[in-house]
């Protein structure tokens, strides 16, 4: 957590295997705790398939229903292209860096350095 913002930073390829299950579990746990601000930092992710997209969409829907904040950051340009063709680029709030995402969620400058790269 950075202030009241939960930051999830998956690594590797989110293509339907163990890493994808791990992401789903982390996000579900945060939802169960009624977390109100979540940033998923994708800067260490090279491949993201339709299964992982489904998890991101389900998370977005859950946060939106609860009027909570949900954002993505650090998206590789090739993954951005996939978001564009699936039209999900029109859905998600996205930021170039974790710092920008945290700032948008009201975290004061400097606090993100504890977690950000």
């Amino acid at each position, binding site marked *: 957590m950075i202030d009241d913002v939960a930051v999830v930073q998956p690594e590797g390829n989110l*293509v339907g*295997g163990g890493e994808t299950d791990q992401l789903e579990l982390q996000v579900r746990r945060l939802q169960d705790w009624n977390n109100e601000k979540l940033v998923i930092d994708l800067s260490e992710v090279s491949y993201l398939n339709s299964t992982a997209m489904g998890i991101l969409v389900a998370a977005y829907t859950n946060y939106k229903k609860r009027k909570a904040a949900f954002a993505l950051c650090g998206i590789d340009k090739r993954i951005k292209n996939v978001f564009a063709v699936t039209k999900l680029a029109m859905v998600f709030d996205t930021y170039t860096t974790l710092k920008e995402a945290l700032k948008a969620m009201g975290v004061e400058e400097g606090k993100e350095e504890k977690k950000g790269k």
Partner: protein
Amino acid sequence: MKNTWSFSIPSTRDRIHVALEATDAWLRKQHFREQDVHDVTLAVVEAVNNAIIHGNREDPRKKVNLSFSLSPGELVVRVTDQGKGFNLRAVPCCFPAHPSLASHGRGILLMRTLVDEVGFEPLKGGLRVRLVKRRDSKAS
């Protein structure tokens, strides 16, 4: 002259990354452009996911076979499972104009967007997905 290559994986989700890493590495060796490496690998991963989950129902005794055939003009990848196939008519042709908030149903549409051709061939004991990526000669 054709450059061909094939391998099989068992039908467990923890093997998806094997198909991904092998495909990515082979395409790089063939000097595909970065975006094409990503698009073809992701299309292959979608086909492998469907083969493992919907085709072979995650039965580790069943295999998913991947074969690659590269000629100067195009790459053809075939992903074959040992399952019962599915109703292709239920799959829409393309992404709707407005974004869908469904958590499933993007895999085949994504494949169709990432490569130039996607074909489905029902076999006696399985389904074969055929992915074709045409290659720009300037990039070779």
